[in-house]
C-alpha cells in the first residue's frame, strides 16, 4: 500500500476529507447564525465546536502511532465507565470493588494491543463476570447484592468490553487489510457510525413525523432513521473500497449494519438514561452531553462490525 508519513495514503486523504466536511458544516452553521443572530444557534455552535475538538483529538491520537491510539481508546472507555458508575446507584461497600473495575480497562486493552484474540474475547464476559460477584460475596454484604452485580456487569460490558473492540480492530486489522491497514478499518467504523448519528439528526429534524420509540427516545423518527441509514449505506459504499478490503457491495452492507446497530446502541443508552431520570450522562462535551452520549452508538456498532469483519474477512 502507498503511504504518506508512514500512514496509508487512503487514510490521509480520508482524514483530509473529514476536515473538509467539518469546515463546510461549520461554514453552514456560521452562515445560519449570521442570517439569524441570537441565542437560537448557541447549542448548535457549541456542538460544532466540540466536533472540532473530538475529531482533532481522535485523528491526532489514532494517526500518531498505534500505542498512543490504544491508550487513547482506553481513555475513552475509562471516561465512559466513570460516567456510568457515577450515574447508577452504588453501594458504599463496593467503593474499593469499583477501583478493580477500573483496573480491568488497561488489562482488556492490553489483550487488544498484543492481538491475543482468545483472551480479549473472554476476559470481561467470563473472567470479570465471575470475579466481581465472588469478590462482592467475599466482602460479605448481601443487601443490594443482585443489583450491584447486575449494574457492574452490564456497565463493564457496555463501556470497557464493547469499546475495546475498536482497539482490537485497529491492531489486528493490519493482518487482513492490505488496502489501508487496521487504521482504515477503525476510521471506517468510527467515522461512519458518528456520521450516521449526524445523518439521522439531519433527516429527522426537518422531515421527522413518525416516532420509532416514543417512550424511550421521542426524538427518533422513522424518517430520520431510514434517511440516515440510506445515507450511511451510500457513503460506506463509496469510501469502503479505499479504507477496507471490502468491495463496494460489502462496504454498503457494512454501512447499513453500522446504521442499524448504531441506532440500537443509541436507544439502549437512552433507555438507561430514562430509567435513571437523567437527560445527559455528563457534561464533558459541550453541546453533546457526556462521553456516553457520544459513544452510545459505538457500544453496539463496534462489536457488531468487528464480528461481521471477522466472520467474512479473517482467515
Amino acid at each position, binding site marked *: 500500500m502507498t503511504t504518506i508519513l508512514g500512514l496509508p495514503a487512503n487514510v490521509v486523504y480520508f482524514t483530509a476529507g473529514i476536515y473538509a466536511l467539518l469546515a463546510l458544516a461549520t461554514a453552514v452553521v456560521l452562515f445560519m447564525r449570521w442570517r439569524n443572530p441570537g441565542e437560537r444557534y448557541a447549542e448548535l455552535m457549541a456542538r460544532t465546536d466540540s466536533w472540532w475538538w473530538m475529531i482533532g483529538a481522535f485523528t491526532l491520537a489514532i494517526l500518531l502511532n498505534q500505542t498512543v491510539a490504544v491508550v487513547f481508546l482506553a481513555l475513552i472507555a*475509562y471516561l465512559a465507565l466513570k*460516567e456510568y458508575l457515577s450515574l447508577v446507584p*452504588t453501594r*458504599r461497600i463496593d467503593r*474499593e470493588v469499583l477501583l478493580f473495575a477500573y483496573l480491568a480497562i488497561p488489562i482488556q486493552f492490553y489483550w487488544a494491543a498484543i492481538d491475543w484474540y482468545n483472551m480479549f474475547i473472554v476476559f470481561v464476559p467470563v473472567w470479570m463476570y465471575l470475579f466481581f460477584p465472588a469478590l462482592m460475596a467475599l466482602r460479605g454484604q448481601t443487601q443490594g447484592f443482585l443489583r450491584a452485580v447486575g449494574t457492574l456487569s452490564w456497565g463493564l460490558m457496555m463501556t470497557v468490553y464493547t469499546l475495546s473492540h475498536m482497539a482490537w480492530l485497529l491492531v489486528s486489522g493490519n493482518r487482513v487489510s492490505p488496502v489501508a491497514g487496521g487504521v482504515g478499518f477503525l476510521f471506517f467504523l468510527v467515522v461512519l457510525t458518528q456520521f450516521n448519528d449526524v445523518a439521522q439528526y439531519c433527516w429527522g429534524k426537518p422531515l421527522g413525523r413518525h416516532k420509532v420509540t416514543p417512550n424511550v427516545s421521542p426524538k427518533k423518527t422513522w424518517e430520520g432513521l431510514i434517511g440516515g441509514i440510506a445515507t450511511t449505506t451510500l457513503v460506506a459504499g463509496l469510501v469502503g473500497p479505499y479504507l477496507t478490503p471490502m468491495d463496494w457491495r460489502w462496504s454498503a452492507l457494512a454501512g447499513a449494519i453500522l446504521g442499524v446497530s448504531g441506532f440500537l446502541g443509541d436507544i439502549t443508552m437512552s433507555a438507561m438514561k430514562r430509567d435513571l431520570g437523567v437527560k445527559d450522562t*455528563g457534561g464533558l462535551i459541550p453541546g453533546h452531553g457526556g462521553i456516553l452520549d457520544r459513544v452510545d452508538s459505538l457500544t453496539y456498532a463496534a462489536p457488531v462490525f468487528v464480528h461481521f469483519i471477522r466472520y467474512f474477512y479473517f482467515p
Partner: protein
Amino acid sequence: MSKNPFTRLLRFLFFAVVVRAVILIALGLTVRHRERLPKDGPAVLAGNHNSNLDALAIMSLMPLRLLPKLRPVAAMDYFFTSSIRGWFSTNIIGIIPVKRGSGKEGGNPLLLAEQALERGEILVLFPEGTRGEPETFKQFKKGIGHLAHALPKVPVLPIFMYGLGKALPKGSALLVPFNVTVSVGEPLYGTKSYNEFVDELEASMNKLAAQEKLPVWE
C-alpha cells in the same frame, strides 16, 4: 501565607498542574451556573463538606489569576497536627486557620477570615464545620452567619457538590474515580440577623441539591 516567591511558585504549580490533572482525569466536574462565580474578591464560597478534596475542587473553579487571593478556611486542630502538614496547609493550600470552639471562650474565631475579606480575598469555607457522613448534610454552624453579618457587602455563594464523598470519603486514603457535580447558587448577603442568614444559606443549598438527580449511595 508565605511571601517567599519560591513557595508561591510551588503553590501555583500545585494548583495549576497537580490539582487540575487530578480533577480532570480522576474526577471530572460538571459545573452548573459557572457564570455566577465572582469575578474578583472579596467573596465567600460556601460549600457542603464531604471530602478532603472539597476545598481543592472549589478552588479549581476559579481562574488561576485569582489563586493568590483564594484561601480555604479550615480547623486548626485538624491541619496542624504535624509540622509538615502545617507547612503544607499554610503555604501550599493557603488555609486560614480557625480554632474550633474558641467562640465560646469569648474570642472571635473568624477574626483572621474577616481580615482576609477586608483585604479583598476570596474565602472557601464549609458551614457544616466537618465532613461528617459522606454525601449527607449536617446542620450549618453559625460562624458563616457571623461572618456575613460583620461584612454585609461581601457576597456569599452556596456551592453544592456531589460525588467527592464517594471518591474520597472521610477515613479513606484511597481515591476511587467518580464524576462530580458542582452547582453554584445565587449570591446571598448578610443584611439581616446572622441566624436568618444561616437559615437562608441552608435553604439555598438544599434547593441546589433538590435540583439534581442524584444516584443512591448506601
